[in-house]
């Protein structure tokens, strides 16, 4: 029995140790650093200050937050509008091809999002496929300037995050009891009523998982605005990246990134509150 305990405590403690050393300590340091001073010649100085948080409350940064939250919101909504029917129709496919079609969603899910953002550039650039096609069928005369606009960033984010919406929704909808839908139909519910009263409530936890997987990346994938253009400070992620690597103001960067953890905590809190434990594994 003694050896069993050694084994048990060794494994538990090694996992704990890793998380403490490389997640909890670093994160605590970010919190501490956000209260430190910044000087031009040093990354941070060990002197307490609230200046970084005062900077966050200036109109420039409040505007960045607001814009970033708005963008993340619309990207998430667009992903859900496109992805929800996508996932639902997937579950209705005959079981023979369902697995294969699901695999075709898993492939982009695991493909490098840098690569996929680059693929979007080849499509929407001035002489890309989209413009050539639209000119040929006579919708436009001049190529659309899509690349280097905010629209391109939204397209890029939706394109990248769509599989992250479809997969949790799909696995959630697979567990949906079809008999409930049939029962609703038998009892005289029409299409919209069945959807609003039966399907939507039952797939709620899938929707929450999907939101968690898209909202934060939509605020932090800094290389997408960087490559696809638009305002370079479109995402909070870009501003944070600049503070760390170009402006070298680590305390301000830390304070900025803590706001992301606040958003994350709110999402998690909402998720844990609204999803019963038995359904959480779906993520």
């Amino acid at each position, binding site marked *: 029995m003694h050896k069993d305990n050694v084994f*048990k405590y060794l494994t538990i403690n090694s996992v704990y140790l890793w998380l403490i050393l490389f997640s909890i300590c670093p994160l605590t*340091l970010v919190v501490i650093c956000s209260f430190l001073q910044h000087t031009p010649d040093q990354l941070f100085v060990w002197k307490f200050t609230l200046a970084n948080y005062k900077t966050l409350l200036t109109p420039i940064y409040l505007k960045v937050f607001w814009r970033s939250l708005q963008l993340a919101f619309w990207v998430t909504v667009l992903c859900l509008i496109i992805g929800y029917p996508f996932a639902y129709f997937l579950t209705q496919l005959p079981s023979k091809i369902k697995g294969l079609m699901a695999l075709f969603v898993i492939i982009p899910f695991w493909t490098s999002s840098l690569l996929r953002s680059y*693929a979007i550039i*080849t*499509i929407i650039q001035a002489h890309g496929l989209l413009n050539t096609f639209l000119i040929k069928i006579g919708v436009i005369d001049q190529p659309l300037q899509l690349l280097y606009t905010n629209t391109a960033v939204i397209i890029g984010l939706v394109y990248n995050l*769509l599989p992250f919406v479809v997969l949790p929704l799909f696995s959630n909808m697979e567990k949906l009891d079809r008999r409930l839908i049939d029962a609703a139909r038998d009892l005289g519910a029409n299409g919209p009523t069945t959807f609003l009263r039966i399907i939507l409530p039952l797939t709620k936890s899938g929707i929450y998982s999907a939101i968690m997987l898209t909202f934060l990346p939509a605020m932090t994938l800094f290389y997408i605005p960087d490559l696809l253009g638009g305002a370079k400070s479109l995402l909070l992620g870009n501003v*944070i990246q600049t503070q*760390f690597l170009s402006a070298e103001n680590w305390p301000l960067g830390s304070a900025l990134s803590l706001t992301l953890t606040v958003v994350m905590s709110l999402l998690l809190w909402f998720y844990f509150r609204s999803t019963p434990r038995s359904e959480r594994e779906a993520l």
Partner: protein
Amino acid sequence: MNKYIRSSYLVLCYAFLYVPLFVLITYSFFQAPPQTGFTMQWYQTLWQDPNLLVVAGNSLLVAVVASTLATVFGTLAAVVLRRYRFLGRQVLSNALFSLIIFPDLVLGISLLLWLHLLHFPLGFFTLAIGHITLCLPFVTIMINSRLLDLDSSLFEAGRDLGASEWTILRRIILPLLLPAIIGAWLMCFTLSMDDVIISFFLTGPSFNVLPLYIYSLVRLGVTPEINALCSIIFFVTLILILIAQWRVRIE
């Protein structure tokens, strides 16, 4: 009619997901605009780029080390969480769960600060630490969901027959989990090979990796060589996913 709408919607969605990738791969085999026709020259140019081979080697090294360690740690964590009751079990479980949606950006920054404070020079070790931390929760969740499907009476039978915990792990749990472990390892490998955000913060100029190298190229614009490089990466990812999925399906 209903079925018709459903199918066309699915076709549209798949087109949205795949046309850009398809176009990219097609372009990689075309000659530069004045000429037309099939060519392999962009792939040959890649092969002659000495920087590319170095950064690809670096990425491979980090990915193999990080995914192996993350798989070992993550599998142990999943087994421990399922088999034992101990102080802080729920905390550990929630912490790993939260780490999945923890923004990569904040993870990268916090590790940068911490490792800077500990005077770690940026390079292989810092990047490996970052990628292990990134992959660990994914492994735990994947292995955990597989453990839920296993029959726990098998472990009890092992114990009744006098096996130690270590023997149960080695002789019963690990063989049963093997497909899931291989799947998890492959997923970690692609996560590490594709990661831009954490690599961006945790590696220095002396140890450049593939995603950052591509990023620096892509910022300069679209070229046939990048198309070729991205096509290769896409096919490698595709093969890894197919192996992982195939291993899982077999069970």
